């Protein structure tokens, strides 16, 4: 190989590792800087978008992982074992969404929002590896802080926490104004 086929190397790395591989590591293996490496990976990702290719490359918080395209699911399910799925109840999903948006967060804060004790839900989420401890809050009782894991990003097809679907300030404001309009109408009658 006279000229290095960087894309082929990245491909081989992601294929072999199976798991997510951090940008730094790939850059070190290629002996390139992070910026150049990122460009190569992005090219490869674009290449993989072709319908003639069965896999895709996903980004997870600065790491990359190879997986199959969802269109392949119906064929794969005939031959491969279904990846282990955790059925998330409404309680678990609500708790998870609070943790995702408010991390790092303590159990007490979660309980304040939901109005219900969350011990069981948080423990289950930790067990499912969707949530992890982030350390302890520097406050009386040193309560545990929780946040989401890389597995959370993977299971929900989110690249990074910044990419979480947002009810942004604008939407909230609109929501409020709408309600206020309605109120006025009522008061006018």
């Amino acid at each position: 190989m006279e000229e290095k086929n960087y894309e082929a190397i990245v491909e081989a790395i992601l294929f072999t590792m199976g798991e997510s591989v951090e940008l730094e590591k790939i850059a070190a293996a290629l002996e390139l800087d992070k910026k150049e490496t990122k460009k190569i990976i992005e090219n490869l990702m674009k290449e993989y978008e072709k319908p003639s290719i069965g896999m895709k490359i996903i980004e997870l918080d600065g790491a990359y992982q190879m997986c199959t395209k969802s269109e392949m699911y119906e064929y794969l399910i005939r031959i491969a074992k279904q990846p282990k799925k955790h059925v998330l109840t409404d309680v678990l999903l609500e708790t998870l969404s609070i943790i995702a948006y408010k991390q790092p967060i303590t159990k007490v804060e979660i309980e304040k929002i939901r109005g219900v004790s969350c011990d069981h839900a948080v423990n289950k989420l930790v067990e499912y590896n969707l949530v992890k401890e982030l350390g302890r809050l520097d406050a009386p009782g040193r309560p545990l802080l929780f946040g989401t894991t890389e597995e959370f990003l993977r299971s929900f097809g989110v690249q990074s926490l910044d990419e979480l679907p947002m009810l942004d300030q604008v939407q909230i404001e609109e929501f409020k104004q709408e309600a206020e309009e309605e109120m006025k109408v009522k008061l006018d009658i």
Partner: protein
Amino acid sequence: MELTVKLQVFEGPLDLLLHLLEKNKVNIYDIPIVEITNQYMEYIAEMKRNDLNVMSEFLVMAATLIDIKSRMLLPKKESEEEEEEDPRAELVQQLLEYKMYKCMAYELRDRQMDAEQVFFKEPTIPPEVAEYEEPVDLAELVGDMNLAKLDQIFKSIMKKQVDKIDPVRSKFGKIEKEEVSLSDKMLYVEDFCKTHRNFSFRNLLEAQASKVEVIVTFLAILELMKVGKIFISQEHTFDDIKIESKMAA
């Protein structure tokens, strides 16, 4: 059994409250607190009281609703210096936040369904490469951690365990459920009305043995007033309330 079925519908007091608001087609910002409180209490009454942990969460919200309800019944301060805050404001804020996360939870569920269609691969590291897998460098991992520090960590965990045992509450005996039902109390007040046509609210309360009895007596008065069996009057805020029986003697 009934409780678990119901709990699948309502994941806690806020969930129930949102349901009631939707059912009544009212806006979160304009909660008709009296109606909602009544409906909420009806729901609680229907719940089988066999899981105190779950019940207590619902009861905390019931108390909040009743607190708001009573604050709204009180005449507003006449001074216009400071604008009085709507007693519902805090609840509205909490409901809005909860609603937002509920909405996000649905969004997440959709995403999960899409993301689930994907297969990952186990690592298949060729033997030639696997040889180079470096073992974990324990010395570096452990660093300057030593037994004394580990001991400290353990002690602080165990101390937390001990702290969890509330020295006051752990000495409490069993809490017996006090049987004070609203319907019993209403009968009691009606009886009282037969012998005392006009009486003072304070006097009536003095005859009550416990806090629960006082509260239920107050609720009984409200209920009897609503159905028109008694008439109440009060000259000034915080004055004694005069109760007059409207029932035939």
